[in-house]
């Protein structure tokens, strides 16, 4: 895997070297991020207060002709408080070959599947870059061969995924971490060839009138880990099992309604279970004859996995309801906010979140986030983060 990664980097760099012409696109962003935790930490090594970090993500994109595209997107974060959060990744480094009704992508890329907002249940190709953000929307690059066929009867995607990526975890001093740190070198795999196991996925998707839907089968290493405490009891060892999963995502779009469904059925080493996220988004456009759009969202989340961490990876959403709103001002600065509350229907543990963003000018924009853990029941998985309510400011300079 390491060799292949090196090969990719060298390959990408050499094409950049020869290809600096008209068809080369370069853009990217640098950002400074300030996170502030108002409560004292739960675990004694963790820092209190503010956390400053910087990120850098240049994007190189080259079209040698209409049929051949290359992409190279490294990512770096430097964090002042959490040494594990200082990390680098290759988000993209691929060659894409395009023909009339098929395309083949080879290299590192990110693939998103799904329709819901409160949880990305069916999205399985890329590992989560957990330490980037609590929302889990940041993903690590995944090496892949991705063959796609586009026909009148729908799209087929076949993915061969060599090289498994482990999730990223906060260091000892970091916030938003598990009760113990995760020792990456001791990770255990069900597969005999460990992270060299080659995972596979196949997906069919199509649009028919108001319906967009996809159905896939995945066979390989679970992106989520179970955890066991090591013998001396001072850290966690992550355990990645082999799973077989079918997943489906469906969206019905009509007038101002979006009806959404995601469901999976997973057969793991010790547990077989199903999980769903389903709900709607309804938008009131141009409220009171202004330009402002207000959307209402509600999603129900169910996850039937075993709550014993030795049998299945932990989940935060076993029987939960998400209710939220999305407001878009549609002004020159593209101001928008999404706010919501996730309530555990069994014990009423509540996670409040709000995300606001706006453009400052042609090259600057700002994002603000707040997450509050309230009324967290002692038995709820969220209890490990109960002291980690925080606000975040991200100031981004694009180039």
């Amino acid at each position, binding site marked *: 895997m390491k060799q292949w990664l090196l090969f990719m980097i060298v390959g990408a760099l050499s094409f950049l070297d020869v290809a600096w012409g008209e068809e080369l*696109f370069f*853009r990217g*962003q640098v950002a400074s991020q300030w996170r502030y935790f108002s409560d004292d930490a739960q675990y004694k090594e963790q820092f209190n207060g503010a956390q400053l970090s910087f990120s850098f993500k240049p994007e190189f*994109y080259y079209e040698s002709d209409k049929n051949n*595209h290359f*992409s190279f997107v490294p990512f770096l974060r430097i964090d002042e408080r959490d040494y594990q959060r200082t990390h680098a990744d290759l988000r993209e480094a691929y060659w*894409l070959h*395009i023909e*009339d*009704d098929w*395309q083949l992508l080879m290299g590192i890329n*990110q*693939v*998103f599947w*799904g*329709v819901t907002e409160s949880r990305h249940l069916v999205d399985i190709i890329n590992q989560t870059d957990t330490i980037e953000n609590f929302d889990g*929307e940041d993903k690590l690059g995944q090496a892949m061969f991705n063959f*796609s066929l*586009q026909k009148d009867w729908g*799209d087929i995607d076949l993915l061969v995924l060599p090289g498994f990526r482990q999730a990223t975890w906060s260091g000892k001093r970091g916030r938003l971490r598990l009760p113990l740190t995760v020792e990456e070198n001791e990770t255990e795999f069900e597969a005999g060839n460990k992270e060299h196991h080659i995972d596979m996925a196949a997906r069919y998707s199509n*649009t028919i009138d108001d319906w*967009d839907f996809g159905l896939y089968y995945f066979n390989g290493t679970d992106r989520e880990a179970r955890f066991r405490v090591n013998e001396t009891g001072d850290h966690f060892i992550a355990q990645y099992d082999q799973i077989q999963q079918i997943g489906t995502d469906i*969206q019905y*779009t009509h*007038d*101002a*309604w*979006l009806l959404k469904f995601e469901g999976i059925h997973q057969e793991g080493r010790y547990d077989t279970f199903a999980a769903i996220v389903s709900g709607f988004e309804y*938008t009131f*456009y*141009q409220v009171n004859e202004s*330009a402002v*759009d207000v959307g209402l969202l509600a999603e129900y989340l169910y996850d039937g996995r075993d709550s014993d961490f030795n049998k299945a990876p932990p989940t935060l959403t076993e029987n939960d309801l998400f209710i939220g709103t999305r407001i878009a001002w*549609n*002004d*020159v*600065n*593209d101001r928008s906010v999404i706010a919501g509350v996730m309530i555990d229907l069994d014990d009423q543990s509540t996670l409040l979140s709000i995300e606001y963003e706006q*453009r400052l*000018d*042609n*090259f600057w*924009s700002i994002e603000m986030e707040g997450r509050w853990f309230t009324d967290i029941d002692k038995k709820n998985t969220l209890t490990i983060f109960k002291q980690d309510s925080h606000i975040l400011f991200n100031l*981004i300079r*694009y*180039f």
Partner: protein
Amino acid sequence: MKKTLLALSISCLTLNASSAIANVDDMADKGYEIAARSDRSDRGFIDSQVSLSMTLKNAAGMTNTRTLNVSTYEDMDEEVGDKSLIIFKSPADIDGTALLSHAKILDPDNQWLYLPALKRVKRISSVNKSGPFVGSEFAFEDLTASELNKYDYHYLRSETCGELQCDVVERIPKYEHSGYKKQISWIDQSVFQIRKIEFYDRKGDLLKTLNMENFKEYPGHIWRAHVFNMDNHQSGKSTQLNYSEYQFKTGMKERDFVKKSLSRRH
């Protein structure tokens, strides 16, 4: 006798009414013909690519600029709309964001938005075409609504418009979610291009005026305006679109206007 008189007066009434209706019908037919001639004047463009800058000006005169690339794929069937792909280039925070539309005539279009940060393609609701497009004075329907059968027409008059002679045609959106009660369009009599449109809001008050300038004829007698000025009379804001040189028949295929194509950056 009384009966006959009554019958006669009824038939007179009917006659009057039907001639009025005939007149309305004539004006509708004439309006439709003028609009159809204009709409069909660029038939066979097959596909086009153009980049444009959009300059937003508020009432205080402050400006903001966006740049975008627009690709369009013609559907010859007048009962089906064209396909289009809009890719934003600036401001930098929306660079790479793309909007794919499969236009329909009276139903809401099928639209997908590509968010490059998440690499996510989202099917979006498109009933609202009357809201501001990227904060500008253009609504999405102003940019795409030249499809012939989206309106009922009514010929008003002919008059001079600048150096040309224009037919003035009122058009009433048939699309139930339109932001307009009516539009009045000025279509020249020499090359049949729309030169000016007045937009009336749902209450019937004059909302915006669009003036199109810098017309150029491309091979195949295809005319395109290259400067669009939209003035909002109610807010005092305005937006100017400046189009680059158009490219036609670029060899794009219908398959370039599918969901998958959104994630290929351009």
